[in-house]
């Protein structure tokens, strides 16, 4: 753990009134538990999603091109090498971007799979869950004094339409990426918060 990470909890203890420390601890545990729960839901979402897209989605070894998604990338390879506050801030930023992306996927799937209510509900729930986890993480960051200075840049807003239409296959692949990203970031958040949980891994 970097010196900066080691100071994160010390700073929190120094700045936080004694009476609030148990509450902060409880909040961290609660948020960590939520992230753990959502990791499981994210796996279910992915399974539900691939089931409705048809083969080869869901087949072992299916590996479509990993196209970048606006406003969100997968956790970088060097993510674990960053300081804990920075990792948590990245987690929070990703969780803020995910709801809009999941909603886009849901609306597209409502056209492609209108008779898949469970899938549509899973996507809707995932957007709400990401928002809830993000809000909880923001609270933890603020309590720790580790929130990013100034407001976070908003996720990319809708702009003028592009000149090309996306085909259905591309839409299916994009939805797969978004669902995968949701799982990756929720899992990453769980791991990062785990380092804050008292008694958790250093």
């Amino acid at each position, binding site marked *: 753990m970097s010196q900066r990470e080691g100071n994160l909890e010390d700073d929190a203890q120094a700045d936080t009134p004694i009476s609030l420390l148990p509450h902060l601890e409880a909040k961290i545990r609660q948020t960590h538990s939520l992230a753990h729960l959502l990791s499981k839901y994210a796996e279910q979402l992915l399974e539900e999603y691939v089931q409705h897209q*048809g083969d080869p*989605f869901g087949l072992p070894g299916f590996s479509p*091109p990993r*196209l970048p998604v606006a406003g969100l990338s997968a956790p970088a390879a060097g993510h674990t090498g960053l300081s804990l506050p920075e990792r948590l801030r990245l987690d929070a930023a990703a969780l803020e971007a995910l709801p809009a992306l999941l909603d886009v996927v849901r609306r597209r799937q409502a056209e*492609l799979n*209108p*008779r898949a209510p469970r899938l549509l509900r899973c996507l809707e729930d995932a957007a709400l869950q990401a928002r809830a986890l993000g809000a909880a993480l923001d609270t933890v960051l603020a309590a720790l004094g580790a929130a990013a200075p100034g407001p976070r840049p908003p996720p990319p807003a809708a702009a003028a339409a*592009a000149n090309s239409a996306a085909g259905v296959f*591309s839409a299916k692949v994009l939805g797969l990426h978004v669902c995968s990203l949701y799982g990756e970031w929720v899992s990453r958040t769980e791991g990062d918060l785990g380092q804050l949980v008292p008694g958790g891994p250093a």
Partner: protein
Amino acid sequence: MPAGRPGPVAPSARRLPPLPLVLLLCVLGAPRGGSGAHTAVISPQDPTLLIGSSLQATCSVHGDPPGATAEGLYWTLNGRRLPPELSHLLNTSTLALALANLNGSRQQSGDNLVCHARDGSILAGSCLYVGLPPEKPFNISCWSRNMKDLTCRWTPGAHGETFLHTNYSLKYKLRWYGQDNTCEEYHTVGPHSCHIPKDLALFTPYEIWVEATNRLGSARSDVLTLDVLDVVTTDPPPDVHVSRVGGLEDQLSVRWVSPPALKDFLFQAKYQIRYRVEDSVDWKVVDDVSNQTSCRLAGLKPGTVYFVQVRCNPFGIYGSKKAGIWSEWSHPTAASTPRSERPGPGGGACEPRGGEPSSGPVRRELKQFLGWLKKHAYCSNLSFRLYDQWRAWMQKSHKTRNQDEGILPSGRRGAARGPAR
């Protein structure tokens, strides 16, 4: 609520996806060669085809990385590699595919036709929609609950199997004027149903029809014309009470209340009662219960639990001449008929076993005989009590067997039961 696609779509026509999705994709930028990103384009994109038709498709490789050719490319459809003889090189950068006699799409989101590089990586994809145009929906039936709403059901044409998502839209309008309206609450009583909750006119006919639409076309049902008052149903009668009729062992009295929502209009309402023995699945129906709110069931078995239900048909409401629609049955109400008189001490009350004479007519005849004896003979000690003691003595030999079988045939003690709730 399913979002339906509009009418027939030409094979090469494409709809713009929603705005935010377009944004997501337009910032993807040009595919990056060497990164595994799409570097080819399949044409046509997302075609719609009839079952049994053919498809000619191409996979054209972009010039990135430089020198990329179509050599070694191959196709898969829904994850299965297509035989090489179905493909051929059109030119150095284009692989063509010919599919014939297509089957219906395996999933409603479209069959996945994918162009792969030699190493198996995905270069491009296109979704095929293979199916049938919808057939005419038919058999529309509608009913109104208490004149407040209208629910309609229909049967999809050709059993609904078109292999494509088919949207059904229930439309309605007042017969001689007014605009077309579209029902909005679907699947209320099954997959092909819709509910119109309010703002319905009475005493004037509606025209109702169903439109079925998918990527290959549309079809419209015949028009059903009806007046809401002719298709009224109501709630089951509430407060159904079933009680004994004094000591009469073969009768039960059934009372109920008119369904409150229409109680001021049910002058000609009809009711039906059905009842069954507790352990039976066979209902007996009493059909000729006209505009009454009570009925006496007769010819029942003594000492038997009966389940009773009542339903209502608001026939003739507001002068309607149509048959009306029966409500659902009320919740079952149970009651038991009185048992036959018990034998004396030492015996349980049993219904006669097979082979023994029925107690009913025998006891009646015996009663008459004892009455005659008392009048004409000096047998003042004779009484029903003596007869019952004799019966108990006769049944002593059956007592053990009854105990082994547990519950007595009537299953109950001799005390009279009040009406069930």
